[in-house]
């Protein structure tokens, strides 16, 4: 039970408080790239929450795309995470990606349905924050997730220990190499083979 007390206070005020929880598959780096419609770097310019017609709460972030690493993404994308707080109703979703204005991010974007709704592959696993590595001034990427019960401020997320820092360049080169090579035809949990064929090059012999 983590940071539970404020959560309960909020729930007590809510007329109908939803919660979601998930099981994530374990994806390899290549599967993460294959499963993404786009892999982009961008800047978060706005964040807000909405409630859909079924009562589900979604946290949304508008991202100005700076660079596409896999497929050519639109200049601006709205990425969604399940859960958040909307009009006093808190929907806590473990492992949801969080966003903050001015945050520099790398996103593995996954299309929801047939329209232009996007989430991230494997929830927070498909979102990185880009920041300056204090050791050498280079750009590194950081994974971090936080319950909706705590304020999220991208500026102060923890840096990984020095030996565990991952450079932006290494992730980008890995994504680009996989995108150029293409999908190997192996199934990936949670995404159809038809869609994988649509969003990826195909390795030789893959139909």
């Amino acid at each position, binding site marked *: *039970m*983590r*940071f*539970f*007390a404020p*959560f*309960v206070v909020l*729930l*007590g005020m*809510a007329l109908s*408080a*939803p*919660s*979601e*929880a*998930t*099981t*994530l*598959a*374990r*994806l*390899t*780096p290549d599967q*993460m790239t294959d*499963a993404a419609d786009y892999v982009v770097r961008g800047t978060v310019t706005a964040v807000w929450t909405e409630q859909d017609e*079924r*009562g*589900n709460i979604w946290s949304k972030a508008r991202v100005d795309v700076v660079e596409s690493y896999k497929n050519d993404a639109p200049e601006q994308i709205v990425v969604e995470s*399940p859960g958040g707080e909307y009009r006093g109703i808190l929907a806590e979703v*473990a*492992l949801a990606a969080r966003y903050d204005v001015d945050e520099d991010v790398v996103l593995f974007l*996954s*299309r*929801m*349905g047939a329209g232009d709704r996007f989430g991230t*592959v*494997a*929830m927070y*696993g498909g979102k990185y924050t880009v920041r*300056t590595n*204090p*050791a050498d*001034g*280079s750009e590194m990427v950081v*994974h*971090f*997730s936080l319950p909706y019960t705590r304020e999220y*401020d991208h*500026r*102060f*997320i*923890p*840096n990984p*220990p020095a030996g*565990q820092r*991952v450079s932006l360049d290494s992730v980008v080169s890995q994504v680009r190499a996989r995108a150029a090579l293409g999908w190997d035809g192996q199934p*990936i*949990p*949670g*995404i159809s083979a038809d869609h994988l064929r649509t969003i990826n090059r195909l390795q030789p012999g893959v139909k």
Partner: protein
Amino acid sequence: MLAALLLASAPALAWDHTGFVWNPEDLPRSWWMDDYVEDSLPEGAQETEVIAGWEAWHAAECAEISEVYEGLGDFDSWDTSDGRTIIYWDDPSNEVGAGTLAVTRSVGSGRVVDVNGQNYSELADTDITFNDNIDWATKDQIEQNNCNNETDVRGVATHEIGHSWGMGHSCEQGVACNDDDLQDATMYWSVGSCDTHQSDINQDDIEGITVLYGPAATFAAVPNSQGSTARYGGAPLEVCFEITAEIPASGADWNFGDGATSTDLAPCHTYTEKGQYTVAVDILLEDPACGSVTFRYDELGYVVACEPPSFEPGAEGFFEVQHFDGLTYQTVNHTDLSVYGCVDMVAWQVYKGGSEADVTEANLVDFNGDVDGGTELNAWSPKITFPTEGSYVVVMNVGGPGGTAANFLVVDAVEKRAEGSGCATAPGALGAVGGFALALAALVRRRR
């Protein structure tokens, strides 16, 4: 690389709750299943495997949970307003998403249920949706070595049903979770293909569900010697604890997360060093129905003790400034961020001049940063564009619950083109740089 990051940043500890619980008066609860046929499974397996998932939770003998299967039905999509627990197998809008095996959605009634002295939201409805883009297999199929990257449907069902009872993930995100015992829990947050370990609940799951529905106890912070119940703050931080239970605890064994322990029923402990601390206690209860029950109750990150800001080991100061391009310089912030919550303010200012004595309001410079310019920037490690060549004092203020720190560097700004990759150090410009700690208490502490 990505996988390694996922593991490194993934969770750490024991059972958790969603904050929701079924009212004992509403048990047994009824559940239904959508009649959508999942063609990756043998006929009938959708029902038998999910039923087995419900039954797995009855291994928690002291948890008073019960349910009734009402059968198959023709249901549409998620509807968390009908008060019925329904298992769906169809996700036409792909809202479950790539990489996610299943999702449980829960809705509270708005009423509060007291569970061993803590308030939980009373559950009114939960629905579970399996991802229809998964190659599912039964537990028996996988264990008979017939697995070819399929996912154990019973294990995922057991996990999601745990959520529907109010169980959270066994390891919270954001903290390393490399303990095999915890990764073996049904409520661990992920599972690989051909892995059936989630089909059966383990001791961690049993303790979590027993706290919700059985004889159990919790703890909370109570006023310390100064009358404060604060769990976040500057070190030294004294926190006092008290066990609450319907049945009085007959024994306790505390671990405060910093190496200190206690067997008092209501101990106080002072945290002297910066850190995020998990508090754990083994509580002994003598229950008339279940007999002697001992279980561990953990609170991940329950206490956050902070010290005044410091810089990372190995760094030579709080920040440095590197030439970027033209009159634009890149700051590199070395402030230690190892404990989330211990730094919550950053502010940069630039003054015309070459020494500490020049840090006065009259010398404040309007500079263009990478956010919105002006005389102050609140980004963590911004670019700074000086208005003209010359000598400037760059000041960085950082602060949090443990205190504040203000530091400066003198930069001789020289306009020149970017070197190499565009992020080169400017030895000429920084040759005259001095780094000194300042006590700039007069600077306005301002958040973004």
